[in-house]
């Protein structure tokens, strides 16, 4: 369930609220599930709107989901903006721990984009070679 509302004032900032459980059910685990969240929130955050992710009813949260949904945001959005615009609601303690580790890992990963691109390209070439 999603809703978009506008705050008062002249900024016309919108708020996108996503009930994660509506997309994932009780378990938010896979990269693909995370990608679906990312696809919705990434353009909103790029446009400097507010996003609220509500994890009510989500009992299991795994790192692949968070890598795709949240970690990936650090590729092209500044941490300051994410701290200002993105809020996590009703995230269980174990999910909070995993999220902090995911964010640390993503920061390390995106800190060296040249290396990352080179490694990704190389691995892709190698895996295509193996499959062929």
């Amino acid at each position, binding site marked *: 369930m999603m809703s978009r509302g506008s705050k008062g004032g002249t900024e016309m900032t919108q708020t996108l609220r996503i009930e994660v459980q509506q997309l994932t059910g009780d378990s938010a685990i896979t990269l693909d599930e995370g990608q679906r969240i990312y696809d919705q929130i990434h353009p909103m955050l790029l446009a400097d709107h507010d996003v609220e992710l509500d994890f009510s009813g989500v009992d299991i949260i795994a*790192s692949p989901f968070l890598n795709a949904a949240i970690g990936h945001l650090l590729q092209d959005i500044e941490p300051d903006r994410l701290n200002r615009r993105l809020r996590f609601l009703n995230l269980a303690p174990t999910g909070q721990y995993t999220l902090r580790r995911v964010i640390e890992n993503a920061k390390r990963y995106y800190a060296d984009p040249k290396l990352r691109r080179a490694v990704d390209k190389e691995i892709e070439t190698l895996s295509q070679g193996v499959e062929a």
Partner: protein
Amino acid sequence: MQLLKLTVVDFGVGIPSNVRKYLRKRRMPAADAIRWAFQPGATTTPQRGISRGLGLDLLKTFVKTNKGKLEIFSDGAYGLVDGSTEQFVNHEPSFEGTLINITLHSDEAYYYLATEVNDEPWF
């Protein structure tokens, strides 16, 4: 004390073999390869622009916090993680695939990884 014991097994090429291919170190000892795989951010999966590689590190942290035990046999490597130990050694005979034994305390007191409130910014 309630204990939960889990075993997960597959018959793939094993972790050291994938790590050697990924790092292009054909002679890397199995023990070093499996130690590498347990580091945060280590992955042999094509990442396609998304950071990954946290699964084994998170599992290791969880087992330590729980004061449980994890044993892994994979392609000539053996690893042991418990409350006080973390060791990775070469192991013969080699297990062709990957086998993980996990023992966890299932009492609630051991369950949470982190319960304290943390008001630090997320990013």
